[in-house]
C-alpha cells in the first residue's frame, strides 16, 4: 500500500430520473452505392423468361433469359442482339472434373469376389479375382486370362497380426523372440540344448536329470533326494541337519559324532558347550600347542571326569582343577590338585633326574647366603581385595617378606608376574640359602668352641 493517504472514491449509481431524457430508435441502414447499381427489377412485359429446347427468335428484349430445357437447363441472357450463355462457369468446371474422374476411375484395376471366374469384361491387365468358394484363392488377369498366384516372400516381409490361427505351421525353422503359450503340448521336446537365462518352474519332474554338471551358484530345494551326492566340497552356510549316516569315517548320531579309530578334533578357537555339559569320554587326549601362548584353557563350570592324563610329567589324580594348562604340564612350576578329602596340596619334584650342573651354593657369589642377613623380616596385613573378610588371615598381622625387597637383595628367590614385576618369594629357594647360612654359622660356632 502506498505511503500517502488513500482517496476513497464512493460510487454514485446513475439511474433514470426526471433529469434525463432517453429515446431509442431503430437505425435505418442505407444501401450502399454498389448495391443500388446491381439491383435488377423484374417488371411484367419488360423482362421475360423462356423455357424451351431452342433459342427464342422473336419478341425478345434486353434482359430476357432462356433456360435451354434439353441442355440441362443451361441459362442464357439476351443482350438485345444475341443470346449469351450465363451459365455458372463453376458448373462447367465441375462437369469437366467429373468426366476426368470417371475416366480415371474406368482405367483402374477391378477386384472381383465371386465363386466363378469372371467372364464379362472388359478386363484390364492386373485385375484380381478372389475365388470365394475356394478359400479366397488369388487369381490375376494376365495375358487374357485369370491365373492363380501366391504371395511371394517379399509380399509378406513382415506379418503383423494380433492372432495367427493355423492348424499346422510347417516350417523348418521358426525364429521368434518370445513364445507366449499357455501350453506347449508335445510328445517329446527334443532339444540339444535349452539355453535359458532362467528356468523358472515350480517343479521339474524328471525321472532322471542326466547332466555332467549342474552349474549354479545355488541349488534351492526343499528336498534333494539322491542315492548319492558326490562332490568335492559340500559347503553349507546354514545348519547341516543330520542325525544319522556317515561323513567320511565318522558316524552321525542324534547327539554325538563317533569314529571307529582315533578321533581328532582340531580347533583354533573355542569348543563351547553352551549351558549343557560338554563331556569327553573314553581315552580322549586334549593337547595345547607347544608354545606358551597356545594354552589349553578350560573356563566356566567344567570338570574332567575319571582318569585324566596330562602329558609331559604324567600325574594322575582323582579330581583335578586347573585354571591354566601350562601349570599342569610344567613340573617345575607345580600345580594345584585336590586330595581325596578336598584339601589343597602343593607338590613339586626335586629328583636328581631332573637336574645337572650341581654345585655348592656358597661357591656362587651372587647366591651368597649372607645376603639374606640384610633381608628385612616384616609383618603386614593383606589388602581387603586379596583375602576375603572371613579368611583367618584377614586384618591380622602376618610375618613374612616383601617380594620387592627379596627382589632387591636375593633376586633368585623372587617370583615375578608377567606384567606387574615382583609377585612373591619362593621358599624353595630361600630355605636352601638359609640352611647354607646356618651351616656356615654352625661351622663358625664349633670353631670358636674349639671343637
Amino acid at each position: 500500500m502506498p505511503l500517502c493517504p488513500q482517496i476513497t472514491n464512493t460510487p454514485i449509481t446513475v439511474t433514470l430520473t426526471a433529469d434525463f431524457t432517453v429515446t431509442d430508435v431503430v437505425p435505418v441502414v442505407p444501401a450502399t452505392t454498389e448495391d443500388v447499381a446491381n439491383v435488377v427489377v423484374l417488371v411484367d412485359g419488360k423482362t421475360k423468361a423462356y423455357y424451351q429446347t431452342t433459342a427464342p427468335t422473336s419478341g425478345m428484349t434486353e434482359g430476357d433469359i432462356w433456360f435451354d430445357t434439353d441442355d440441362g437447363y443451361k441459362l442464357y441472357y439476351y443482350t438485345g442482339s444475341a443470346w449469351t450463355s450465363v451459365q455458372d462457369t463453376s458448373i462447367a468446371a465441375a462437369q469437366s472434373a467429373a468426366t476426368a474422374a470417371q475416366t480415371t476411375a474406368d482405367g483402374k484395376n477391378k477386384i472381383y469376389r465371386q465363386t466363378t471366374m469372371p467372364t464379362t469384361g472388359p478386363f484390364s491387365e492386373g485385375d484380381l479375382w478372389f475365388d470365394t468358394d475356394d478359400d479366397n484363392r488369388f487369381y490375376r488377369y494376365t495375358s487374357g486370362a485369370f491365373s492363380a498366384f501366391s504371395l511371394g516372400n517379399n509380399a509378406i516381409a513382415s506379418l503383423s497380426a494380433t492372432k495367427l490361427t493355423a492348424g499346422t505351421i510347417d516350417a523348418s525353422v521358426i525364429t521368434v523372440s518370445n513364445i507366449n503359450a499357455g501350453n506347449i503340448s508335445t510328445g517329446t521336446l527334443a532339444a540339444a540344448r535349452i539355453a535359458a537365462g532362467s528356468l523358472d518352474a515350480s517343479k521339474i519332474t524328471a525321472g532322471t536329470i542326466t547332466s555332467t554338471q549342474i552349474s549354479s551358484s545355488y541349488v534351492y530345494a526343499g528336498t534333494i533326494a539322491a542315492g548319492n551326492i558326490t562332490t568335492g566340497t559340500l559347503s553349507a552356510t546354514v545348519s547341516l541337519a543330520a542325525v544319522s549316516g556317515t561323513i567320511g569315517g565318522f558316524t552321525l548320531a542324534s547327539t554325538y559324532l563317533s569314529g571307529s579309530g582315533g578321533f581328532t578334533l582340531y580347533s583354533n578357537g573355542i569348543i563351547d558347550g553352551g549351558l549343557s555339559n560338554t563331556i569327553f569320554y573314553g581315552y580322549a587326549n586334549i593337547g595345547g600347542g607347544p608354545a606358551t601362548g597356545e594354552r589349553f584353557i578350560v573356563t566356566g563350570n567344567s570338570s574332567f571326569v575319571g582318569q585324566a592324563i596330562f602329558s609331559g610329567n604324567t600325574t594322575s589324580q582323582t579330581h583335578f582343577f586347573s585354571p591354566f594348562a601350562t601349570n599342569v604340564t610344567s613340573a617345575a612350576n607345580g600345580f594345584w590338585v585336590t586330595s581325596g578329602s578336598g584339601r589343597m596340596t602343593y607338590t613339586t619334584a626335586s629328583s636328581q633326574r631332573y637336574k645337572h650342573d650341581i654345585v655348592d651354593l656358597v661357591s656362587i657369589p651372587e647366591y651368597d647366603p649372607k645376603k639374606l642377613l640384610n633381608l628385612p623380616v616384616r609383618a603386614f596385613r593383606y589388602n581387603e581385595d586379596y583375602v576375603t573378610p572371613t579368611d583367618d588371615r584377614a586384618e591380622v598381622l602376618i610375618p613374612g617378606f616383601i617380594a620387592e625387597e627379596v627382589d632387591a637383595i636375593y633376586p633368585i628367590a623372587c617370583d615375578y608376574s608377567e606384567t606387574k614385576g615382583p609377585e612373591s618369594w619362593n621358599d624353595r629357594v630361600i630355605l636352601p640359602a638359609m640352611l647354607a647360612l646356618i651351616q656356615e654359622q654352625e661351622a663358625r660356632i664349633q670353631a670358636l668352641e674349639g671343637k
Partner: protein
Amino acid sequence: MSAFDGITSPAIAVQFLKSGTWTSVTTTDVIQIDIRRGRTRQSERDQAGISVVVFNNTSGYYDPDNTSVSNPWVVSGTNILRDGLQMRIVATIGGTPYNLYYGFLEETRVNQGEAPSSTMTFVDGIAYIADAQAPALATSSFAETAATRVGRMLTYAGWPSGGSRSLTGTVGMLATTQNRSCMALIYQAVDAIAGRFYISRNGVATLVPLADKFSRPTQLLFTDNQASNTVGYMQLLTNPGTYYVVNQAIVNRGEAKQYTSQYNPSVSAYGIAKTVFDAPVATDSNAQNLALYESRKLATPDTYVERIDFNALAVGTYGLLYPDFLSTELADQVSVVRTTYDGRTIQWNLVVEGMAHNITQNNWMVSYTTSAINPYSITI
C-alpha cells in the same frame, strides 16, 4: 545516468531482448530518454505508448547497419537493432526493478556527423495491435463478453497469451461480422463496459471495466508544504472543465437500436454537448444504462488539475516514495494539496490519464496528465 545511483535515486537501464535475454545498454551511452504513455484526457482513447531514446554512437554500436563482430548487438552476423526489437526501460531502487516502459523498435535514425548519435523510436503494443485486421465473417458470430472479444482480437493480432494479457469485462456483446480493424473492435468492447484499454508499463495488454476506478490505489500526494511522504511539484496546470462537458450520449447498439440520453440540467446550463459511442451490447437495458452513464459522467464541470510537472530525482526527499512513484500505473490515483497565496487549502483527487518522462544523464522530469476522479457508476 550519472545522477542515479540506485540507492538515493533509481538507476535507469535501457534493455534490449538479445537472444531471449534482457541485456542492458551501456548506461553512459544513453543521452536522453523520452517516454509518453496513456492519454491527455479521459474522453480520449489511450494512445500507443512511445519512447524515444538517443544514444551516443561514437562506438557505432547503435547503427543497425553495423554488423562488426565486436558490436554487442550483432548475433550470428545479424544486427538485432531492427524493427520489432523488444526493449524495456527499467528503474531500480534498493535492488528492486520497476519497468517504466515496454515496447518495440519502430524506427532508427543515425546521425553520422561529427557528434554521432542514434535516435531510436519505440512503440508499445497498441501500435502493434493497430496493424491487425479482424477477418470478415459470412454471418454474425461470437456473441461473447467484452473480455472474450478483446482476447480474440489480440489473438488475431498475434499478441501472446498468458501473462501478457489482463482482460476483465463481463458485459455481453452482440454477434459480429467483424471486417474491421482489431483495434476498432477492441474500442467497441471498451465502450460496452465504459472501461479502459492500455498496455501496462510491464507490457501487459490490459482491459479494465468501469468498476476498476473504485479500487485503484492512491500512489502519490503532491504538496507544496514539504510534509512527510509527499512529493513537491514544479507546476500545476488546472482546468475549469467546462470545455469537456458531455451531457448527451448516443449509444449505437449495432443495427439493433440506438439509445440517446440527455442530462437536462447540464443542457440547460451549457447547451447540448454530444458524444457518440459504438457499443454493440447484447441487451437494451445495458445500452440504456450506458447512455445514462455517459450523459451524466461529465455533465457537471469540475475544476481539476490537468497536468502535474515534478522532478523525479526529488521524489524521495520527504519519504521513501520511490517504490510508490515507480509503481504508478495508468488509471491509478494521485492527489494534490495546494495552499494558495490567499491562504486557502485546495485538494484535488485525480486519476492518472497519462504520464511522460524526460530523462537525461543529470535530470529526470515527469509530467502526469490527470482528470478529476469521477464517482458515477451504473449496473451493467
